[in-house]
């Protein structure tokens, strides 16, 4: 397959992925809070706009993207539950502390998963022997 075709296919799937993600985000609005959704959007924008341009099979990229979103959803859901329980036990001040540290907690999974996925894409490049 020619490079241009691969690029066009990548662009198409990137667009479809974003549509799918927006749909998922809308659905998950009831489960997680607004902040969590924005952190997922940040992750997706960074993932779709950068690693999708690197070499590697499209399937692998889509799987990593889906896995990243699931990780983010679970991470946020668990932390939200934890915050609710802790606020119930320790008072509302805990919710304020959670709000303060939420961005830092979010960055942990965003950066870690993003970095991890790059190692997989590198392996993919080595496996296929494709030039950038």
């Amino acid at each position, binding site marked *: 397959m020619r490079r241009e075709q691969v690029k066009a296919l990548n662009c198409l799937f990137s667009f479809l992925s974003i549509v799918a993600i927006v749909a998922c985000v809308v659905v998950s609005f009831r489960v997680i809070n607004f902040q969590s959704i924005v952190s997922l959007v940040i992750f997706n924008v960074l993932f779709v706009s950068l690693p999708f341009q*690197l070499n590697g099979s499209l399937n692998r990229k889509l799987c990593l993207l889906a896995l990243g979103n699931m990780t983010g959803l679970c991470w946020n859901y668990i932390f939200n539950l934890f915050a609710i329980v802790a606020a119930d036990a320790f008072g509302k001040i805990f919710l304020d502390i959670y709000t303060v540290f939420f*961005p830092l907690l979010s*960055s942990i999974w965003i*950066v*870690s998963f993003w970095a991890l996925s*790059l*190692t997989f894409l590198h392996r993919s490049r080595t496996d296929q022997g494709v030039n*950038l």
Partner: protein
Amino acid sequence: MIFWILAIIFIFLTGLMLAYLVRHYIFTITVLRGANKDKEHRGSEASAFEPTVSILIPARNEERVIERLLERITELTYPKDKLQVIVVDDASSDKTGAIADDYENKYSFIEVLHRGKDEGGKGKAATCNAGLKKANGEILLCFDADYYPTRDIVEKLVGQFVDPTVGATQGRVVVLNEPQNLVTRLIALERIGGYRVDQEARDKLNLIAQYGGTVGGFRSSLLKRLHGWDENILAEDTDLTLSVYLAGYKVRYNVDAECYEEAVDNWKAYRRQRYRWAKGHMQCFFKHFWSVLKSKKLGIKEKVDALLLLNVYFMPIVAFLSFLTGLLLIFFGSPLVNLLWLFVPICLYNFVGNFAPFFEIGVGLYLDGRERTQLLIPFLIFTLFYNMPICFKAFFDVTTGKIFRRNVSVWVKTSHLGNGNCYIQNLSINAS
């Protein structure tokens, strides 16, 4: 009232951080898009352009590293009859001068300039200025004593000067002792973000590519016109970068002109080095801010990039203040903070280490063909937190120095222990 003042401060600071984030995002995309073209075009710049070149090597107590550099200098592929190497022994108390003298006796193109205790020890800028008086090449390159260049580095750096608008050139710095420990590994990540992506993007976008103080050089006539290195500025490289642009010339970056450096290997040395850089950068901010704004030789995008570059060591302070004002606003129950608050961590990563965000470093690692180094990226947050107090102290010292007219330009030299020597044999450039 206080609420609104805080809100405006918070939005301004967060907006500033977002500006850096967008800037680095554009850099990353630019380098990614240009990766294919580069492979096709690299090497095509090699030409028959062979001006006379003077190489300056400022050295103070570098006995553990200078021999490997001088040995490498003798292996350079550039015609030796067009080469003048000047080792400036800056009042060393160890064997640096004696080692350099040995090479001077063996090779006609190597000269040694000894500076006595009364005139020496005043910093790199003063040492380089002493060397500049002796230099007679059309192009002047500068290498720190702990560096180890590729054999064809002179051709690659000098080739850029074919363009008469180029006033300075810069090559890529790679960490030699990267596997040594966590500190050197994290510094290597910063270097990759800075030199594989950041510098290259600035060069491609015709923004302010930076002369990094070493592995680079100048058109000698221009440097002399600029009166050499400013001895009152600790970040003499950034100072000269801005001076070159303000004089109507530009700095070109060549990612293929690789040179290996021995990075500091402990947090104390890291702190000292970064403190010097931060202080020097802030001095440059105060020196060049208005000149950049008023310059008629710089376009709008160059001015914006120059100001962002000058401001970069203030950003850890900005990040902290943004966090602090956001905190206060949350406790005031502000509705506007929640959304902007989300950008803070990603922006914080923007100022990690050498001020390259995680995605820029990740893409740099990918382009370098690294396999597992990406896993260290999350650890860079520690260098950010480490840099915050360093930048605060530098800011305090520079501003109080300005107010009370105190001299804050005390050069604290980074010691080089020769820890990189054992890694030289493993370098791919030595494989043949």
